């Protein structure tokens, strides 16, 4: 069934339908790439071929329903060859993988042409089509037995036919198996110590869960408990309770039970999906019509597949991210209003325990709603990471280097807006690692005592309140001296500049900087890492580089969890509150007189453990007033900016807080040194400082 069929029943404009088609087709095409690479890594996995076939089959239907004949025609041939390999015994020849990947490229380009109503065909259209036809013609020389044996058996597996046993984890001793018609869920309860005070108990949740299904097993984790003397029954000592629940209900329905529990206190994972009982008539159809064409059967089966997915709300609710932003904004307003109530002095003076409890409860629920709305925007980096497999494959072939590519932490979640913008910088860093990082040939690597195959690791993890995405290679490392000399030669730095290792490595991300002896067409085209840096900075993140000559390099992209909230240090200057993004803060201190220096014509400096750091007075740079407080009576905040390190002089450090970023109106948007605003708990407005524009680096 074409992917659009589900939408056509609604009244939508042609443009809307087209937009949905393009979005869904793009998703399908991106997945084709990933499935092909995964299949290349695991050629025995026929399910991957089935996945590929399903994607291409869906795409063909959609393309034809839109009258995209160039796309539909090409995809039809691609589908034929996939069908041959997925359904038969014949193994996929090595060269077929290249043909498949080329076919995906052609599909992408043809889709763009069709959508833009442009004539012509992509450059590789004919050649790839010919290659597909050649693969198809070679199949005809194979035995007929395989073809006859294929259809029914294969489809049973492909579409989750009813005779399959429920999927269970390997360790059947630990993991129970759900009954037919039920899904198996794993729930992990990590309640705080105060749950009994909050009126909850594991017992109550077990009771509610047993109304949703059957609890099969539970594992209770208890750290060392006090002896009876010190034991307090009103304290929850259980750190974790893991339980398995079989239920015919979906995860959303089960999650409702935990509506008033903090999100970090529980998790629900689908272990195995509901498996229906075998339907006798299905078998009968198979036995009565053994010679039907495979394609016909697929056409009949697909609606069932689609229908099953349609029932699954998680798969089908698509929300415009703008609507999520609006929702998040409204929730932000609610948090502000709630904080205002909580901190209101008049309400406090009422001294009513009941009112205090209600406000605390309101606060808890507000935070819960805020974190759930936040979670709506979060998506795993999995898909972006998977896309890198193709990048590595293509890049390694182009420069003729054998690469072992590993991925770690792909389940780490990032704001959807950032995931979309992360792909291009990441592609560049990965290509850069292969092109410039890894040694030119295996001999060089062996001579350096390394394995012949270059290692590239892509990893995501949480670091502080941020997301870190790391590209690590075990190549030759960055030659610090060469970078320094090149920067000097190009006038990026002067001979007097004293730079730390980090700053020297950072120079390679300056515009136009390239140390590549030969400019390759993979990276090093002079529009490289500076674009990476500016793309990441647009996401309020930064790139850190670490390297050791002969051992390799690590590029770490640090990103905030979301663009809608910022973790900030609240500072006071001349009676006004400002927010400094915590990501830029290195340290804060009150300087003593002896470490403060003034250089004629160059301004004020603080000697921080031997490093002379320029001082920037916040009240002066923002032109708040002409006051000139003594530096040793003030607080200095050491900050890292794109122009280097500097110390921001403020009156006081008030605290650290997560704030919802509010854009400034048009009139204030171009204010130098300010990137946005935030409403504080007491209703006051604080401006968020743009660290990079506060310090030019030249004073």
């Amino acid at each position, binding site marked *: 069934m074409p992917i659009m069929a589900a939408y056509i029943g609604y009244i939508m404009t042609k443009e809307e339908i087209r937009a949905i088609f393009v979005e869904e087709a793009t998703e399908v095409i991106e997945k084709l790439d990933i499935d092909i690479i995964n299949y290349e890594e695991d050629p025995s996995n026929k399910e991957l071929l089935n996945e590929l076939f399903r994607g291409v089959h869906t795409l063909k239907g959609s393309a034809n329903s839109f009258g995209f004949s160039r796309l539909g025609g090409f995809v039809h041939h691609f589908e034929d060859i996939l069908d041959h390999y997925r359904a038969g015994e014949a193994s996929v020849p090595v060269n077929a993988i290249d043909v498949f990947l080329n076919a995906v490229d052609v599909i992408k380009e043809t889709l763009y042409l069709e959508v833009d109503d442009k004539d012509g065909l992509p450059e590789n259209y004919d050649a790839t089509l010919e290659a597909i036809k050649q693969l198809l013609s070679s199949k005809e020389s194979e035995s007929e037995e395989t073809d006859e044996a294929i259809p029914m058996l294969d489809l049973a597996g492909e579409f989750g036919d009813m005779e399959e046993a429920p999927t269970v984890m390997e360790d059947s001793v630990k993991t*129970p198996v759900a009954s037919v018609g039920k899904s198996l869920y794993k729930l992990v309860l990590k309640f705080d110590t105060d749950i*009994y005070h909050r009126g909850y*108990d*594991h*017992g109550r949740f*077990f*009771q509610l869960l*047993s109304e949703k299904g*059957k*609890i*099969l*097993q*539970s*594992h*209770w*984790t*208890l*750290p*060392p*408990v*006090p*002896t*009876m*003397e010190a*034991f307090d*029954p*009103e304290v*929850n*000592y*259980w750190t974790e*309770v893991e339980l*398995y629940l079989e239920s015919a209900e979906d995860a959303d329905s089960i999650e409702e039970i935990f509506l008033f529990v903090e999100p970090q206190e529980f998790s629900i994972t689908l272990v195995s999906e509901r498996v229906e009982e075998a339907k006798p008539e299905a078998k009968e159809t198979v036995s009565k019509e053994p010679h039907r064409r495979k394609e016909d059967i697929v056409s009949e089966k697909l609606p069932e597949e689609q229908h099953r997915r349609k029932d699954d709300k998680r798969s089908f609710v698509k929300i415009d991210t703008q609507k999520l932003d609006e929702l998040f904004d409204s929730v932000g307003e609610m948090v502000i209003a709630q904080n205002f109530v909580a901190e209101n002095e008049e309400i406090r003076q009422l001294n009513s325990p009941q009112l205090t409890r209600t406000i605390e409860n309101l606060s808890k629920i507000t935070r819960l709603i805020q974190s759930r709305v936040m979670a709506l925007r979060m998506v795993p980096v999995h898909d972006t990471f998977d896309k890198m497999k193709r990048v590595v494959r293509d890049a390694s072939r182009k420069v003729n280097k054998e690469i072992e590519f590993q991925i770690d932490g792909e389940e780490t979640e990032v704001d959807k807006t950032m995931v979309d913008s992360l792909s291009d910088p990441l592609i560049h860093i990965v290509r850069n690692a292969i092109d410039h990082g890894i040694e030119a040939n295996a001999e060089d690597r062996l001579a350096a005592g390394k394995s012949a195959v270059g290692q590239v690791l892509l990893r995501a993890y949480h670091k502080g309140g941020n997301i870190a995405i790391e590209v690590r290679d075990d190549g030759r490392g960055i030659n610090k001296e060469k970078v320094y000399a090149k920067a000097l030669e190009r006038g990026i730095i002067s001979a007097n500049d004293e730079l730390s290792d980090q700053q020297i490595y950072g120079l390679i991300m300056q515009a136009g900087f390239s140390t590549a002896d030969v400019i390759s067409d993979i990276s090093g085209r002079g529009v490289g890492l500076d674009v990476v840096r500016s793309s990441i900075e647009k996401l309020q993140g930064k790139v850190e580089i670490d390297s050791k000559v002969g051992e390799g390099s690590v590029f770490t992209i640090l990103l905030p969890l979301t663009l809608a909230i910022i973790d900030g240090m609240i500072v006071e200057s001349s009676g006004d509150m400002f927010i400094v993004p915590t990501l830029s803060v290195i340290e804060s201190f009150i300087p003593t007189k002896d470490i403060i220096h003034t250089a004629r014509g160059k301004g004020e400096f603080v000697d921080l453990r031997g490093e002379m750091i320029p001082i920037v007075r916040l009240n002066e740079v923002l032109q708040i007033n002409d006051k000139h407080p003594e530096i040793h009576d003030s607080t200095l905040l050491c900050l890292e900016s794109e122009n280097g390190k500097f110390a921001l002089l403020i009156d006081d450090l008030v605290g650290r807080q997560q704030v919802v970023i509010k854009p400034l109106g048009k009139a204030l948007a171009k204010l130098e040194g300010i990137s946005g605003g935030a409403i504080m708990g007491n209703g006051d407005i604080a401006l968020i400082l743009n660290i990079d524009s506060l310090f030019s680096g030249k004073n």
Partner: protein
Amino acid sequence: MTIDGDVLEIELDMDLGEVMKLKKFVEPRLEYIESIEVIGARDRFASSALFAMLFSIKKSKPEIRIPIIDDGVFNLADYGSVHWIHND
């Protein structure tokens, strides 16, 4: 909750209030309680505080017999098998 000689008999449907009462009852008598047994329905439990307290009792008097925690696993008709992971 009853005490039969040196055997304390408890029920699994004790709520938090009853567990608090149980603590007050057991503490001064712990010296001569040899065993804690579950009586009544074994279908469900009311409060997890009861289980934690049984482990606390065991820690206070390691020789006491408490089958539902000593065996490492016990079964509840409504809630399946219950497994303990406890390092003390």
